[in-house]
């Protein structure tokens, strides 16, 4: 994005300029600069949660939109994610200490037979950034592993990811098993992955298909909000 990184001294920027610069640095995947920016904002008295949402998540949302629009590609998104991870590494312990608001809880994992986790990891990171507690089951998850995690973690949301057309049908196996056990409606089920689409999500009985990490966050917030409202009106 910017060609004159060497000329910019982050500590000399005011808060608004620094946040804008962090957007640029995230876009360019500059992990060290992001970590420096986070530390500067902390020194200036910013709350960890504000840094996370205003600087990091704000920046990653731009990255997500440009990925969706075909302006950025997987390598650039990975670099941006790596930079955000650097910021999260500093903020995570502070968020726990300062009692940042928790929006909800999500169990997420890649389905059985599939080892691809780039998209899942991005979703997990963005969900954490948005205030969700995320339990990541990793890759190659059987229905039993998903159900055990639902039982143990009692999340609001189950997220399933697949990159292969040969593995994405397994999502239906998980949802059908949830229906059989009478627990399907206890959870918001979100699905995602490159070969999926909205039609597939509906066909297998998911609550929503999320085309990228930013959409996953928005969708999760919307569904959790609805769930809470139902709780109030019930």
């Amino acid at each position, binding site marked *: 994005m910017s060609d004159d990184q060497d000329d910019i001294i982050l500590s000399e920027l005011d808060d608004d300029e620094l946040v804008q610069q962090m957007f640029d640095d995230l876009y360019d*995947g500059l992990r060290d600069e992001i970590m420096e920016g986070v530390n500067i904002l902390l020194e200036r008295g910013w709350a960890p949660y504000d840094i996370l949402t205003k600087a990091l998540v704000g920046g990653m949302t731009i990255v997500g939109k440009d990925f969706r629009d075909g302006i950025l*590609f*997987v*390598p*650039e998104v*990975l*670099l941006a994610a*790596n930079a955000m991870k650097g910021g999260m590494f500093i903020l995570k312990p502070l968020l726990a200490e300062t009692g940042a608001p928790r929006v909800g809880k999500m169990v997420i994992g890649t389905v059985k*037979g*599939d*080892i*691809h*986790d*780039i998209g899942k990891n991005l979703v997990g990171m963005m969900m954490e950034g948005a205030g969700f507690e995320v339990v990541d089951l990793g*890759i*190659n998850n059987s229905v039993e592993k998903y159900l055990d995690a639902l039982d143990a973690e009692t999340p609001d949301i189950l997220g399933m990811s697949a990159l*292969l*057309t*040969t593995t*994405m049908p397994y999502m239906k196996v998980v949802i059908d098993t949830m229906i059989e056990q009478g627990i399907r409606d206890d959870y918001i089920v979100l699905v995602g992955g490159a*070969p*999926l689409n909205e039609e*597939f999500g509906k066909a297998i009985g998911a609550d929503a298909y999320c085309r990228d990490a930013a959409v996953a966050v928005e969708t999760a917030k919307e569904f959790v909000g609805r769930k809470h409202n139902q709780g109030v009106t019930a």
Partner: protein
Amino acid sequence: MTDLPPDRVLTEIGMTAPAATADKGTGTGQILLIACGALAREILALIRLNGWDHMTLICLPANLHLYPDRIADAVEATVIKNRDHYTQIFIAYADCGTGGLLRDRCDALGVDMIQGPHCYSFFEGNDAFALHDDEITAFYLTDFLVRQFDAFVWKPMGLDRHPELRDMIFGNYTKLVYQAQTDNAALRAKAEECARRLGLDYEYRFTGYGELTTALTDVAQKN
């Protein structure tokens, strides 16, 4: 018979090889094969070997595989453009990451296609490949992909510019399986080098042309 264009052309542009008996340029062979550019070399070899002079081959760019959602539209457009000139059209693609979309489109167009999820499967034999439950951590390369490793894998994944991304992308893989269509020492050496670059174990597996041969033989014998 048209000479095989360079892999770069097969990757980015595709090709047309008129049948030996066809009116060159207008395409009046009996059978039209619409294939992935990654299969051009193998299909032309089969056509030559078997004397299938009634077959015309059109290859779509192999790099459509980087955007599988575009394959069905590209195949359909090619079928519609050419179907008045041929008795039969056969699609030399497997599902190739289209999630059944290509099969549905072929059914709607009244044309047949190769069985199986992808070329790794039909080269090895779909039944044999389906038995590899233990290979979810395998990364497969064919002859074409070994030759085009940088264009198809290394550069699109950004590893030429950011080698530090390698383990984020390939960290869950354990081995590279080279499914060889031909016995070629230079390709074996290159495949082994590809495995080393990706940080994966290496396995060599000779498949020959597998079910590509049987699928095209069936098509040839119907006409």
